């Protein structure tokens, strides 16, 4: 949740980036440290991990080729990873829940707060307050919210409030049917500020004449929101959404600290399963397959990023 990298988008003012020119020692000198690190720490491991996913991989080394065994087990025989049924469950399914609810609600809440904040004098304060979780470690977010959810009216704020209405106490994190929703709510709380700040900047780019014209024509605020503001900031919305999708696929710390994937295995997500299966169970080939699943899920984002860059490069 913390310090999301800003979404990938591209400056339009490129002036100097055409390739060409002959071989350059200077270029080699400036690029060599980065190239070396990227080759050793990103490219080589990616190839190794893909290969290891077809291997038993004892101790992380190539010990015995097993063909598609890891892959077949992952998608058909491991209910902790994916169990299709009604309702479906497993780590991959939980990521789907996160993807649908976390991404859409963060974007929606971010938009609404950004629009509402433009209409008050304390706009800067509201934005700063919702943005603050960006600086906080997921580990600390986990402690903050485990405390709020504590199933004791004399400890947990949520149950104290519910107690006023004579509900509960409920243990959201201890119940397989509520734990994912409780975690998603924490995720939303952590990321809304990010969406608010980005979208607020975009909304300010909408010319006030457009909004005035709509008001003169008798549009109400709901119509202005859905028919003018949302379409006019659709690109920033897409960029924010893509960043949030990446967050979901890489999600780990919050789950690890708050629930350890529990109760049982009900709140696991793929990054947690990768750690659990590889490093705690010692099934490195299997863990490698899960890491590859993460890469595959991120490929559409990669294509989105590269396409956007190329489109910009052509416009120059």
């Amino acid at each position, binding site marked *: 949740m*913390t*310090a999301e990298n*800003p*979404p*990938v988008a*591209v400056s339009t*003012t490129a002036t100097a*980036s055409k*390739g060409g020119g*002959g*071989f*350059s020692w*200077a*270029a080699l000198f*400036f*690029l060599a*440290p980065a190239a070396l690190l*990227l080759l050793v720490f*990103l490219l*080589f*491991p990616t190839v190794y991990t893909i290969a290891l996913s077809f291997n038993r991989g004892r101790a*992380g080394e190539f010990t015995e080729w097993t063909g598609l065994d890891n892959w077949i087990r992952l998608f058909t025989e491991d209910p902790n990873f994916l169990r299709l049924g009604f309702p479906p469950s497993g780590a991959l399914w939980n990521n789907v829940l996160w993807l649908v609810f976390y991404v859409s609600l963060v974007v929606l809440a971010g938009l609404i707060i950004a629009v509402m904040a433009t*209409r008050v*004098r304390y706009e*800067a304060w*509201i934005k700063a*307050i919702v943005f*603050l979780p960006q*600086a906080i*470690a*997921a580990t600390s977010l986990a*402690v903050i*919210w485990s*405390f709020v959810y504590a199933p004791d*009216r*004399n*400890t947990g704020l949520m149950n104290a409030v519910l107690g006023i209405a004579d509900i509960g106490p409920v243990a959201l994190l201890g119940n397989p049917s509520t734990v994912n929703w409780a975690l998603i709510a924490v995720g939303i*709380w952590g990321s809304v*500020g*990010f969406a608010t700040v980005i979208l607020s*900047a*975009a909304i*300010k780019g909408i010319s006030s004449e457009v909004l005035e014209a709509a008001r003169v024509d008798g549009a109400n605020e709901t119509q202005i929101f859905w028919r003018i503001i949302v379409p006019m900031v659709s690109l*920033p919305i897409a*960029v924010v959404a893509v960043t949030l999708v*990446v967050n979901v696929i890489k999600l*780990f*710390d919050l789950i*690890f*600290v708050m629930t350890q994937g529990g109760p049982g295995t009900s709140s696991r997500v793929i*990054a947690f399963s990768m750690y659990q299966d590889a490093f705690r169970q010692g099934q*490195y080939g299997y*863990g490698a397959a899960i890491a590859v699943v*993460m890469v595959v899920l*991120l*490929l559409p984002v*990669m294509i989105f*990023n590269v396409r956007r*860059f*190329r489109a910009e490069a052509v416009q120059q």
Partner: protein
Amino acid sequence: MTALQDTTVQAPPRTASERLARFVGKSPVHIILGIIALLWLVPTIGLLITSFRPGADMRATGWWNVIVEPRFTLANYERVLTNEGMGQAFLNSLFITVPSTILPLLVASMAAFALAWVKFPFRDTVFLTIVAMLIVPVQVGFIPLVVAMRESGMPLLTTYAGAWLAHTAFALPFGIFLLRNFFITLPKDLIEAARIDGASNWAIFRTIVVPLSVPAIAAYGIFQFLWVWNDLLMALIYVQRTTLQPMTYQVTTLLGTYATEWSLLSAAAFLVMVVPLVVFISLQRYFVQGLLAGSVK
């Protein structure tokens, strides 16, 4: 809070009654924003208060009772810092984070300079490859890098070296991307003029590009600092000595040991937050600028 500041669109109301009318007309907005502010502040404030409450009070009543029984103590902080290892873990977090911030700053700005201002074949292809690498998850590195580090004969996993290198490498695609996009916006004439005057690439990099790019470099530095400081996962993998573990790891350990000792847990969680909050509040301007530079358009 200046970076988030913005001018209000409306003309100021002229009279008191006009002001009142406008305020009442907007009251749903004020109420909703008020609820939002409470929702975002209260959980954190509750934890902060708990970290200063005596343990006996914490076990007896909810933190909101400080209004009727305002007793505060520093004992929780004292205990987690000394007996519970958060003091050492604080230093460990610093030892991990500082090199893991400085190294990628240096390496990424050099590469970004070449990609922006040195001509060489396939430059756009190289940059596209780096854009593609933005999504590589740290998980693909875990198994091969741990094996390689273990077998290298060098103490990479029992010191901080492995974590520094892994953090640096995985920070590069984003850093190169961000800085290259900033560097190409620098005035071309300035750099061409320096070239004509016979300045070397290194001189142009050091005396023109870097000084003019302080906002972008600072933004990247802040991101990377916060990212590493707040990280738990990379430490779990690449720091294999319990005594070297950062604060995030130590908080997780405490949570396992003292599941409901919220006095200690809250103090520990707050210690993790202190440095990022100071960095964030004092350098917020750069942070938000960086965020916007990376996104909008």
